[in-house]
């Protein structure tokens, strides 16, 4: 087009009125077509953006953005106190440890997972958009894994970003760098485990119902009720001296489970009444975590095998 107008500046082109939109007709596409990996990667990124409402309607941004704001607020205050009042209060470590922070803020995390799992998983089933994905080259298990990965990454950002803020604050407050880095890395591993665990469970619940409200309520109930029951049993167990009962009970809530794994692997201060003591119980906690994640992935793939296009 441009070369033509350069070679013939006067002529038909010059007579045409300016500002007319020309119908170019249908133009076939001759460019590159990407393979499975780049497609899966762009699907992952879109899903991750969607968990924070980006690329969706304005209303869907309110809840996830609000939650991450509220999630960061306590960390910001803790950092402020640590930096400003370290000498006055004679602090030599974080006021709240990295492994305790997710348990303290668990309601926010549960609400995030409960609201975004249906937005990502049930939405495709409810609007039957899944048909359009299945009618494209991506295979079914890849679809499931990528959707789950987006949700996990979104949850990990929510859980991990206040920890990063606290770490940066700790460094600014001149806490010992090596020790702080190790504790932070332990916290991040815990955040990743928690994100995988919560996302797997929430995605499974969301995949079993196409009704958004049902899915949200079901996930919140599963996460909050399980923690409340476990915490109560652990309290009673500690009071009556049956610590091992409390340790076994800790396997039944994602929050106590991941805290137990962190206590076992990184020897951090436990945030539960009865953390796992001894290598056997610690390994059991780790095993249950890994198995739960794998089982939820397997169940999701099995669930989607039955989705009719």
């Amino acid at each position, binding site marked *: 087009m441009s070369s033509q107008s350069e070679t013939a500046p006067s002529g038909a082109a010059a007579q045409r009125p300016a500002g007319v939109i020309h119908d170019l007709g249908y133009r076939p596409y001759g460019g590159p*077509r990407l393979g499975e990996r780049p497609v899966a990667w762009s699907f992952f990124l879109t899903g991750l953006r969607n968990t924070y409402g980006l690329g*969706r309607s304005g209303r869907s941004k309110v809840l996830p953005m609000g939650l991450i704001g509220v999630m960061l607020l306590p960390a910001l205050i803790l950092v402020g106190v640590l930096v400003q009042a370290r000498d006055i209060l004679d602090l030599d470590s974080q006021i709240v440890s990295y492994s305790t922070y997710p348990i303290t803020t668990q309601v926010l995390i549960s609400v995030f997972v409960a609201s975004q799992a249906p937005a990502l998983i049930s939405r495709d089933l409810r609007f039957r958009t899944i*048909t359009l994905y299945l009618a494209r080259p991506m295979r079914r298990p890849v679809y499931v894994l990528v959707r789950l990965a987006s949700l996990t990454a979104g949850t990990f950002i929510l859980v991990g970003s206040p920890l990063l803020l606290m770490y940066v604050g700790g460094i600014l407050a001149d806490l010992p760098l090596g020790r702080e880095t190790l504790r932070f890395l332990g916290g991040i591993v815990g955040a990743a485990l928690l994100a995988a665990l919560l996302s797997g469970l929430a995605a499974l619940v969301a995949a079993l119902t196409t009704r958004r409200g049902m899915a949200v309520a079901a996930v919140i109930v599963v996460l909050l009720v399980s923690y409340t029951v476990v915490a109560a049993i652990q309290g009673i167990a500690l009071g009556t001296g049956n610590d091992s009962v409390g340790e076994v009970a800790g396997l039944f809530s994602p929050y106590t489970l991941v805290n137990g794994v962190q206590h076992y692997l990184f020897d951090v201060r436990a945030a539960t009444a009865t953390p796992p003591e001894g290598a056997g119980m610690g390994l059991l906690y780790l095993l249950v975590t890994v198995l739960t994640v794998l089982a939820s992935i397997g169940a999701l793939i099995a669930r989607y095998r039955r989705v009719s296009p």
Partner: protein
Amino acid sequence: MAVIETAELTKRYPSVTALDALDVTVNDGVTGLVGANGAGKSTLIKILLGLVDATSGTARVLGHDVATEGAAIRALVGYMPEHDCLPADVSASDFVVHMGQMSGLPYASARERAADVLRHVGLAEERYRPMGGYSTGMKQRAKLAQALVHDPRLVLLDEPTNGLDPSSRDDMLALVRKVGHEFGIAVLVTSHLLGELERVSDHVVVLDSGRLLRASATTDFLHATGSLVVEVQGKPDAERLLGQALVDAGLTARPEGGGLIEVVVKDEHTPDVVRDLTADLGLGLVRMQERHQRIEDVFREGGAGSVLPV
């Protein structure tokens, strides 16, 4: 090379046989797939996309085997399902870009293509609004756009006019025709409304209970039946008078009431005879035209299930 080729394609569900030893060949251009609800149209489309396995028989789409090369086929084919499939909280623009990427287009190309196809299907400013607020006509356009965004070689359109009002229906049919003839993309379009397919398709494949009832060019369905329809007026029993005169003149004629007579054409003089006899009887000749068959006649002859003749 044929776009779609099936051989002895059979699909059995526990309680019903959806496709029964189907042999169909589809070429470039627009091909209509007709059949009553439950005739096996949607099952055939899902098998062609490699989403459902056939019980026996083979099918090839654009030279690829559906059983083993499903992914390759799905990269070259666009699919517009019959049911709703658009998320409510995403704009058509964002959604079509995303679907282009899912078909393997790089982001920049996907954006360019999405803008192009949305213009072709006629979604203007509303493409930036969430699709939950769209009318049925706009939803159908968005669904067509996502099927075209990756410049497929073949599009499978399942009931694209479903739920549309008459004027949107005309727009959609014109669009289907444009895709098949101007864009150079082969089209397989299903409908249970025969009149629609007469208008847009070059070939028609008629399915009945999973079996092939007939497959041929649309013009063959509409061929002249070898008889004239004559309409006369002027006297209360005009058609009976003319009919008797025609029979006396050695022609086969059948009054149909309402001033209409069907006359079998014997040779090239038959119209002249009709004209002269009408004039002799002092009747007015309103019209005389060749009678054409319609696709629905195939169903009457073949005794196929309930199809809405429109």
